């Protein structure tokens, strides 16, 4: 949380400053959309370790972070990536090989946890999950929770409705608030103070930002403050919540950024092929992540031609007719 000052930084500096080993992190976007991939790759390049990650369906960025060995614990609703990888491959492998600790929630529960964090309350109630193993099976034990002041003492709590059946509910599930140390999102437009305008769906980005102690915004364009302020109702995030603003064109690549570019089906199908094999995945990391000095260099490997293919159509916001087979 910072205030009224210019916050433009390089991505390297922003990650170095705000993502520290062992910190609690969340990233924006949803499956194939607006994941802050440039930031994710930079975190991998800076070899950050032992991150505690909060995710709803931010499967793709999270999967790379797991693949890069950055994450040791994850609270997650969905480790999948649409058709390209119905279960995220490095996530699946890391769990099956017992390389990470994990705890399952539903998408709504995770969204509510960020919402509670943004609201400054300890929990929020829902009727989702009653009778399921999501409530019964914990990933983190009470003992482990007791040793970590950054974790609530319980996964979840069931409460009899204190308003005697009001709204037809006999009981509710209370999910505890999340306040990450750092949230990173990628947006279409931001000004140099951090006010953001997200185009298309906003997923849970806004609550993730407001719940977080520090926030890095990467953006396609840094735009004029006066332009954003002509329509303040379209700016979901005011600058007061933002710590750093980084200009990264194609910052969500290989995923989509509505009105700018589509996901890259070629990259995605290649990447999931590599991910399935430990040796190939290592080679993939060496070439596309560690082997490049920044996102721009990754884009230059991909090539202009492919980037043009995924350029968004003005009318639809995506690459109309893109070959996605």
């Amino acid at each position: 949380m910072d205030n009224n000052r210019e916050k433009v930084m390089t991505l390297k500096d922003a990650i170095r400053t705000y993502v520290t080993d062992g910190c609690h992190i969340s990233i924006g976007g949803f499956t194939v959309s607006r994941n802050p991939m440039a930031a994710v790759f930079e975190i991998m390049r800076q070899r950050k370790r032992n991150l505690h990650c909060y995710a709803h369906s931010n499967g793709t960025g999270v999967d790379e972070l797991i693949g890069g060995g950055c994450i040791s614990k994850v609270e997650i609703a969905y480790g999948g990536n649409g058709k390209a990888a119905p279960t995220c491959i490095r996530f699946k492998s890391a769990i099956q090989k017992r390389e990470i600790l994990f705890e399952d929630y539903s998408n709504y529960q995770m969204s509510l946890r960020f919402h509670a964090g943004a609201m400054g309350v300890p929990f929020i109630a829902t009727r989702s999950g009653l009778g399921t193993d999501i409530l019964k099976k914990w990933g983190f034990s009470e003992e482990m929770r007791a040793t970590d002041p950054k974790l609530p003492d319980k996964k979840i709590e069931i409460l009899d409705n204190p308003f005697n059946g009001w709204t037809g509910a006999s009981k509710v599930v209370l999910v505890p608030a999340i306040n990450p140390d750092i949230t990173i999102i990628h947006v279409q437009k931001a000004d140099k103070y951090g006010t953001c305008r997200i185009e298309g769906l906003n997923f849970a980005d806004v609550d993730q930002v407001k719940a977080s102690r520090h926030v890095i915004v990467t953006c396609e364009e840094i735009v004029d403050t006066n332009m954003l302020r002509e329509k303040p109702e379209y700016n979901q995030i005011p600058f007061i919540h933002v710590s750093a603003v980084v200009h990264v064109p194609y910052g969500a690549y290989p995923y989509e950024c509505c009105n700018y570019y589509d996901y890259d089906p070629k990259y995605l199908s290649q990447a999931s092929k590599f991910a399935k094999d430990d040796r190939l995945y290592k080679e993939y990391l060496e070439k596309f992540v560690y082997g490049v000095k920044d996102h721009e260099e990754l884009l230059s490997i991909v090539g202009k031609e492919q980037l043009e293919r995924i350029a968004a159509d003005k009318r639809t916001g995506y690459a109309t007719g893109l070959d996605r087979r």
Partner: protein
Amino acid sequence: MEYTLKELMTIMAAREIQDGDIVFCGTGISMVAAMAAKHINAPNSIIFFETGAIDSRLEEIPMAVADPRVMFGAASNSGLLESFATMQNRISGDHVIGILGAAQVDKYGNLNSTCIGEYLHPQIRFSGSGGACDVASFVPRCLIFMQHEKRKFPVKLDYLTSPGYLDGAGARERAGLMPGGPTAVITNLGVMYFDDDTKEMYLAYYYPGVLSQTILENMEFSVDISRAKEAEPPAEQDLKILREIVDPYKLIL
């Protein structure tokens, strides 16, 4: 007219959608079924996604529920909080029909999309709930797509991710869930409904050329087959719609 199994499954699901329904779609065949229903039998149904898009225009098939194709031409684009609230809220939620898939389903329509084996040390890990547990908790009607294999219809789930009828009649209410629950399981062999009284799965339709016995052999638990009828194959017009309008590039079908 010849048709594929996937096409048949799509049409069987589309038939379960009523005009005016708000259809919660996941990735893949559920989207195709919802699109088909809109073109065939439920023109005023509304397609919506957990990501926050309501009444998406879907000029092209989305590959994920966050695909920009679900954002295009929608009535409103918001976020997860709004979309799940739409289902949890009884006023709007009672109009929603969910379409889900899973790795396992039991005889009460409970779903596992989390893991095979012990939760903390699974042999196979899947994606996890996503929004499935939420939808299954909230909405009065759900369709479930499954491949008909013995291990996918177990007596006991390895992990109960999304609630069906839990352990039978009245169990949802006892657990504190809203009434409702799954209405149909649509597989590559037939369609199962749930008994009004016992909430147990029973065979409602077997596909042309499929024996009820074959269906039973592909499940760990047995179901009542006495009410089963042969499913009516898709009409020529329906297949044309699927092939020419809904999924011309065969991205899903």
